């Protein structure tokens, strides 16, 4: 078993203290002694991977953690280098970041804002993490992003799909590579119109919290622009486990499409229930009844089993993509762990690389330098084609995938097939688009 010789902030501090002279018994160090918070002074730099390890998203968190470990390995020159070789920016050479060995600490967000912030704070205050990344829900991402802004740490969001993360809750120190509700709508609507026609009547079931609201808004406005009619939108409690009471009224409406703005366990259960109630066998207004799941996750598709077959949805990335970056990442992840990576793993891996590259290009770990390096950064070779990190809202703009549940999966990881790669131009929106209004980045905060 390979030993990652992890040392924490401790050794760095020890070095610093020793350098200052052990003869002096006590040294008071005010925070302002360094240029920015947690400035790495030793031979290593610590990143904080804050993912759900308990609770319903624990498996997703585990996959994110695998990707982070892989990224650290590649940054430190281990393994096959993964996407380092396909990444258009060539500053990363396997010698860590700015010559410092990359180390990491992990924490458990529990998919709760409070716990996630506690965990992030512990990484910042105790372990001296210079960057926090991870998460598997928008609520957590927004909460941790705000914390990092206050603490003067860079936050590279993991899986967060709500418009708000780079909309009304955007922050100067926070960056999102993952796509968002608006992009899902923009990518899905034309495909849906193409497959199901433009005179459809849609019934929405929406998880009763922020992500649900933004997704519902994005999908309704995108599909209505195609000529669809929104018959009804119904909010379902997050805690609901059985959606039959929400599914049956669909039978009595004249809707011929059901849109499930649900994620995770909610999506598994609502989709399962909808299929149980025979919605997919219905013919309404002479048309076959259809179900749409705006945001797909492979792990959740697995939970829904047979029921996902033929159902459209969108996803940030899929391992079956054939570009060089995706192939390199899938090979390297698959060789190490024995199964293909999820989209959550992909976005987390890419975020780590993007951060490392930005530091390298800026020549400094200073958050403000990193922000500057990432803003307006254009790159390619990380799996979604040419991508822009937009300066105005710190959102990545890249191709979005429309996928469909596969009819004949060859394994439990091969559940989705790519229907269309929606080009980036089609999902780009102005940064002051109404669905993203109300936020302000503020200025970068180095923490001192």
């Amino acid at each position, binding site marked *: 078993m390979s030993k990652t010789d992890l040392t924490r902030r401790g050794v760095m501090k020890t070095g610093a203290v020793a350098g200052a002279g052990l003869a002096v018994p006590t040294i008071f160090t005010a925070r302002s002694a360094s240029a920015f918070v947690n400035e790495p002074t030793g031979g290593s730099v610590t990143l904080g991977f804050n993912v759900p390890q*308990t*609770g*319903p*998203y*624990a*498996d997703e968190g585990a996959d994110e953690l695998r990707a982070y470990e892989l990224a650290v390995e590649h940054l430190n020159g281990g393994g096959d280098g993964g996407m380092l070789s396909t990444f258009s920016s060539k500053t990363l050479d396997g010698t860590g970041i700015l010559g410092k060995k990359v180390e990491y600490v992990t924490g458990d967000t529990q998919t709760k804002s409070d716990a996630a912030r506690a965990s992030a704070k512990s990484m910042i205050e105790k372990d001296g993490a210079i960057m926090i990344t991870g998460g598997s829900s928008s609520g957590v991402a927004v909460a941790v992003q705000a914390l990092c802004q206050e603490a003067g740490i860079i936050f590279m969001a993991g899986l967060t799909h709500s418009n708000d993360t780079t909309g009304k809750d955007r922050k100067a120190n926070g960056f999102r590579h993952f796509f968002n509700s608006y992009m899902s709508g923009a990518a899905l609507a034309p495909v849906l119109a193409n497959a199901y026609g433009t005179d459809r009547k849609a019934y929405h079931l929406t998880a*009763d919290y922020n992500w649900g609201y933004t997704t519902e808004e994005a999908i309704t406005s995108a599909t209505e622009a195609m000529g669809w009619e929104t018959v*009804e939108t*119904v*909010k*379902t*409690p997050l*805690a609901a*486990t*059985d959606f*039959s*009471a*929400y599914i*049956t*009224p669909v*039978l*009595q409406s004249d809707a011929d499409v059901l849109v499930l703005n649900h994620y995770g*366990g909610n999506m*598994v*259960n609502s989709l*399962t*229930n909808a299929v*149980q*109630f*025979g919605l997919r*066998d*219905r013919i309404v207004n002479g048309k076959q009844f259809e179900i749409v799941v705006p945001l797909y996750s492979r*792990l*959740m598709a*697995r*939970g*829904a*089993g*047979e*029921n996902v077959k033929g159902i459209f949805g969108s996803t940030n990335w899929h*391992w*079956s993509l054939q570009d060089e970056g995706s192939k390199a990442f*899938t*090979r390297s992840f*698959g*060789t190490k762990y024995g*199964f*293909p990576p999820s989209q959550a793993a992909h976005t987390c891996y890419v975020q780590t690389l993007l951060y490392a590259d930005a530091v390298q290009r800026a020549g400094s770990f200073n958050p403000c330098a990193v922000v500057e390096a990432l803003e307006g950064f254009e790159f390619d070779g990380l799996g979604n084609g040419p991508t822009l990190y937009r300066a105005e809202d710190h959102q990545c703009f890249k191709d979005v995938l429309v996928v469909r549940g596969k009819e004949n999966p*060859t*394994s439990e*990881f*091969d559940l989705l097939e790519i229907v269309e790669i929606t080009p980036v131009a089609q999902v780009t929106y102005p940064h002051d688009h109404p669905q993203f209004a109300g936020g302000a980045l503020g200025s970068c905060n180095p923490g001192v």
Partner: protein
Amino acid sequence: MDALLLQVLNGLDKGSAYALIALGLTLIFGTLGVVNFAHGALFMLGAFCAVTMQRILTLSYEVVDETRTDFLGNPLKVDVPYVQSWFGDSVGGGIIDWAVPISLLMAVPVMIFVGFAMERGLIKHFYKRPHADQILVTFGLAIVLQEIIKYFYGANPIPTPAPDAFAGSFDFGAMLGMQAGSIIYPYWRLVYFFFALAIIGGVFAFLQFTTFGMVVRAGMADRETVGLLGIDIDRRFTIMFAIAAVVAGLAGVMYAPINSPNYHMGMDFLVLSFVVVVVGGMGSLPGAVAAGFVLGILESFASMAEVVAFLPGINQIIIYLVAIIILLTRPRGLMGRKGVMED
């Protein structure tokens, strides 16, 4: 009208699950006086009996298919279940298809064992301890059981489909002479409802018509007097506990196809089940069952778009609201008796 009928139907299966869990909780409350926070975990264990049976039946060996490749470009390894290769595709496939009903056979001994071990190993020592201690220890146990399941099965829901024979849904609309397809109800949910009725009926019959059941009923009503008649009620608790565990476990097995089991499904049901038990009335079995169905149906009604439009958020809080109203107007719940769990 048919919308209301539909919601009654919807309430039935949720109500069945509430009723079955509440029934077991009440048995334990009523006879043993123990607040069992691990009861939801028993429901969850039942569901994972179904998952395990599915895993056992689909134990596979790998066959390399040279014509196809896997995600890394190597020849694809296809899993072939032993059962399928032994009995042929149709019979073997059929056996796998029926994994959930078959797992009932496994769940009974497993749950008896779990219930027995729990009572003898742990709960027994807590009869005379304060309720607070009982809560702490059973909550700890619930976490441990849950985490063990998570360790082996992961945190994701695991699809556990019903046999194909029950895959469709029943058209009440056509049967009642209404428009076809307006009131449909999945077969498996009907099965679940009747299964729940059978279990509830079985438990009641057992309590009503056996000597042991008579002792249990007497013990729930008045432990002191039962002791005065020379009966050591404590000794019979193990069996009571095992019965409650089996009821919860079977409820879990049959629930698996309705919603894919995950490791925290027990906790999701636990709090609501406590509310159901209290609303029904402490120590009253008919109360627990009635409250389970009533709350299940009310929850369905409250989710109707018309109701939510009128009272926003009512679908989120209906059960708790009803619980508050009932407890304030009927101090001991619907059918509770004086003196049970009031210390």
